[in-house]
């Protein structure tokens, strides 16, 4: 088996003649934190949507854990161990923090169609749910509705929910968006710790976070890969500086 957990070959997505993603060959090594960066509209979220099957590619293929997953359904990709987060934080707002995590823990139990049974069959998951909630520092909010949480805490909850499925690979779309400095530090530490025995592919605009966390970086601009390498290489690349300065990004 190859060292790459995820590979794409010539991944392309057209929206009515506009090519959002163009011939992307991405390789993510197992057990690393890989960052996908680029100016606004570069196609990063679109790549995520293609990888997690929320969009169908126009051309190209995707290999996950050595198997071609180009045409599998989104829920099946999740079941194979690739779980994503969303650019706009995705929690279940009217469920409590504990219930948010429990919904994820519940899936492997295989009782999710049992409409005749009491919810109390899920109580055995509470302990594990609480561990996860504590691990992301939300223990004080466990009984609150997720919709009431501040941005940073919603992010943390989203990560806890994702971890509940113990995925081999996490895809995080701008985990730091909208967070204050102390939240950024906390979430960064969290990502670092969960990445110890997992692979993380992360879209992020905050370059100091990218510099700090990632083992490898791919720069995307106008749907194409512009550069790839470790932070020092990429940040010194004139084409990358040009692309960022050109769109007014720091």
């Amino acid at each position, binding site marked *: 088996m190859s060292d790459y957990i995820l590979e794409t070959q010539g991944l392309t997505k057209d929206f009515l003649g506009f090519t959002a993603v163009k011939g992307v060959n991405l390789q993510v090594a197992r057990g690393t934190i890989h960052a996908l960066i680029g100016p606004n509209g570069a196609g990063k979220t679109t790549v995520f949507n293609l990888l*997690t099957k*929320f969009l169908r590619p126009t051309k190209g293929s995707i290999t996950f854990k050595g198997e071609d997953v180009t045409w599998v*359904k*989104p*829920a*099946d990709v*999740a*079941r194979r161990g690739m*779980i*994503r*987060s*969303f650019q706009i934080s*995705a*929690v*279940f*707002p*009217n*469920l*409590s923090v*504990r*219930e948010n995590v*429990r*919904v*994820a823990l*519940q*899936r492997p*139990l295989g*009782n*999710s*169609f*049992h*409409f*005749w*049974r*009491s*919810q109390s*069959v*899920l109580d055995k998951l*509470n*302990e594990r749910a*609480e*561990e996860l909630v*504590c691990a992301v520092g939300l*223990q004080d909010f*466990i*009984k609150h509705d997720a919709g009431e949480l501040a941005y940073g805490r919603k992010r943390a909850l989203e990560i806890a*929910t994702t971890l509940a*499925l113990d995925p081999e690979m996490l895809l995080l779309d701008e985990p730091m968006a909208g967070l204050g400095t102390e939240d950024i530090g906390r979430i960064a530490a969290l990502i670092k710790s969960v990445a110890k025995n997992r692979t993380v592919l992360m879209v992020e605009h905050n370059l100091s976070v990218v510099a700090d966390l990632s083992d490898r970086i791919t720069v995307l601009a106008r749907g194409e890969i512009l550069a790839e390498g470790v932070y020092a290489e990429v940040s010194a690349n004139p084409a990358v500086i040009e692309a960022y300065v050109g769109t007014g990004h720091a």
Partner: protein
Amino acid sequence: MTVLTDDILPTSGRAVRDEMIAFAVMAGLLLIVPLTGVYPFFVMQALCFALLACAFNLLIGYGGLLSFGHAMFLGTAGYVTAHALKVWGVSPELGILLGTAGAAALGVITGLVAIRRQGIYFAMITLALSQLLYFIYLQTPFTHGEDGIQGIPQGYLFGIFNLARPTTLYYVILAGFLFGFLLIYRTINSPFGEVLKAIRENEPRAISLGYKTDQYKLLAYILSATLAGFAGSLKVFVAQNASLTDVHWSMSGEIVLMTLVGGLGTIFGPVVGAFVIIAMQQYLAGFGQWVTVIQGVIFVTCVLTFRRGVIGEIAHYFRRSL
């Protein structure tokens, strides 16, 4: 960890207690109806509609799916039960079973067609399917078209309970209603209900966690159809007829109205809504065509001033779960 576990879920624990009290009050009131001199026929009819609205509410309030064709389940079950009782001469329990099964089968077929559509498209497809069925029922001989199936024998339930006796019939209908109501309550609070709520809250997120959301929505739809059919079968014993009004689109509209007036996504709201609307039709019958206008005004007022519905507003005001 112990700090967190020793007071298990105070909020939802309180919610369960509130709901139990409300249920006890409702069941208690309904049990003594025959002693109060309230016209039992009215209450029985309202109970059938209450169950229908609860079934509808399961789909929209917890599954987030607006069906605008729920009358087709009410009407189909009604026709099947009426036909089985009158023409085949089956027992009441078998008649109910057949009617409910008919609605369930219709739920499977229409659900497979409709469930992949979202929002307004889902509503439109369910409406179109129910209109299609309306015209089929208008043409097929067994429904007797405009006349409907009349003079249905009520018979003896399980060979013991004489359904021609109003008090016996009342308690049978009440038992059916409570059974359906509790089944819906259990469904909402089951492992399945948890996933359903998650899908309603954020479908892409539920998918990204590995849930095949279409399958959950389909099951919710079939359950809702089956229970709506159960209400339709029970109603045959009350009205002693089955007619086109029950399959008409305006009936589907009335179901929506009942649920909205009472409180969408609340447990007791649809029951209250059904009683309010049926009472209005009963007591305002003297106004003839104006009933529709009055209903329209109430509907508009409801949407503009108390959007959560009667029970929804009360629950919100007292921060309670009802």
